């Protein structure tokens, strides 16, 4: 394969203390596509996602074995800079978590952190802000109040802002952990639409407990159960003709 996979894990195991949350996960996420990760609550979806930008290790009692590569480069190892990992791999959470800064400063935050060149002029910053907000379909609503607090936005707008602030540092991979589950149906629809417009430009790994969402909004779909990857195929195939009987049981709603 000429193009390396966006994410490739090999025999990845993870323990929270003595509790093993992931068992021998081998998953290959294709670049430039949207891959959804489904499975019953507690099966390890968030754990897998968080391992990919190494948030899990903040808990002192987490231990892992196996490897994770992102675009062909290992993300675990002595030569790896955590800051670079976090820069290239953006993460969106269930609850929108904008910083208590203005909308403008939220968008510029990550960019300022990672900017190595000279300090940008006001005009360059305006450009960055506008481009990011346009990409997440938030520009028209916020262009007249960029100096206002981000926490005054609706949840839907906050979540879009949380996506927008990742973009200026040009990540290649976006990890989203149930990005719509705190939103109302209208917000869910709007954020799904946004995710779909980001397709191609970014590789997106999307955890969802909403099967209709996985079906609507993803190219590929991976099903996890009790810490293991059960099945991973194109979304269409997985939903129409699941190979593993457990996948079938789940998508037909037989696991709560």
């Amino acid at each position, binding site marked *: 394969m000429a193009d390396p996979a966006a994410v490739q894990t090999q025999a990845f195991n993870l323990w929270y203390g003595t509790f093993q949350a992931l068992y021998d996960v081998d998953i290959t996420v294709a670049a430039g596509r949207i891959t959804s990760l489904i499975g019953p609550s507690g099966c390890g979806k968030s754990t897998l996602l968080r391992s990919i930008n190494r948030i899990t290790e903040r808990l002192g009692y987490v231990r892992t074995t196996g490897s994770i590569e992102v675009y062909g480069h290992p993300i675990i190892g002595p030569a790896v800079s955590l800051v670079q990992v976090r820069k290239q791999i953006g993460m969106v959470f269930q609850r929108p*978590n904008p*910083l208590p800064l203005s909308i403008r400063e939220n968008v510029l935050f990550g960019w300022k952190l990672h900017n190595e060149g000279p300090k940008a002029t006001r005009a360059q910053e305006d450009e960055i802000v506008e481009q990011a907000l346009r990409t997440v379909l938030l520009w028209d609503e916020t262009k007249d109040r960029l100096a206002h607090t981000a926490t005054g936005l609706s949840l839907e707008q906050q979540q879009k802002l949380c996506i927008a602030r990742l973009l200026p540092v040009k990540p290649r991979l976006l990890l989203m952990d149930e990005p719509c589950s705190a939103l109302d149906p209208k917000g869910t629809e709007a954020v799904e639409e946004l995710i779909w417009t980001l397709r191609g430009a970014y590789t997106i790994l999307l955890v969802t407990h909403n099967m209709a969402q996985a079906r609507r909004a993803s190219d590929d779909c991976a099903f996890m159960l009790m810490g293991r990857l059960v099945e991973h195929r194109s979304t269409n195939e997985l939903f129409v003709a699941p190979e593993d009987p457990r996948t079938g049981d789940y998508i037909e709603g037989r696991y709560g």
Partner: protein
Amino acid sequence: MFEARPINRQNQTIERIWRGVFLAMTLVLVIPVLVILGVLVVRGGPMISWAFLTTEPTNGMTEGGVLPALLGTIALVLVALIASVPVGVAAAVYLSEYAADNWLTRTINLAIINLAGVPSIVHALFGLGAFVLFFQFGTSILAASLTLAVMALPVVIVSTRESLQAVPMAFREACWNMGATRWQTIRTVVLPNSISGILTGVILEVSRTAGETAPIMFTGAAFFLPFLPQSVYDQTMALSLHLFVISTQVPGVPDGLPYGVALVLVGIVLLMNSVSIAFRTWLRGRKKW
């Protein structure tokens, strides 16, 4: 259909009783404070004049003003502030933002809380041993202020840490997940969101030390000095010790004089507290979010 039933009336009565109990306890707290302030104002008020604040005590401290003591107290508090704030805030930032939650951190936290309960006379002896004798600052403003600073430190650390921990964890995580280092997170998100709380706590605590007598008695405050201190290596008078001296050690002090001194002391503490509240309001106003 909607009339009160016996059980409702019974609950009503219990409700009134508890309300009364809590109100009574609040009054037990508030009334003495008001009485003290009232007495001070009534008996000490007539003493206060521009001359009282700007002249030195005369005639064996039975007449004249409080200028050297007033300036001395201000100097002691300022130097204590300068000494304790950087150390206390930095220690709190370390404990809250950097230190892992392990037995060592927990032990340190416990020690700090216990340190806050150490009687001030013990701090006085420590200050005498450490600053006056060991570091050879002599009995001086410096030694007395450092003693006050050591006394204020635990409380400064605790109040700062509380302000820091009031900043939601989600903000920190959002920063870290974008690749911010600890320090970048502290500088851009944690401190700006806790600075007003930190400053209020710090100023309140340090102004509280203005009233301390024991820690400065052995370390830098003089009974009576006919001149103003010229540097931090000089001794100084202080309002709290002056009040103690004229109330108990000097014969022939007119009745109102101690009340006047006490009123000045209370006034200066209130002034510092008001400044800290004004400062906090100003900082909050500057925040755009």
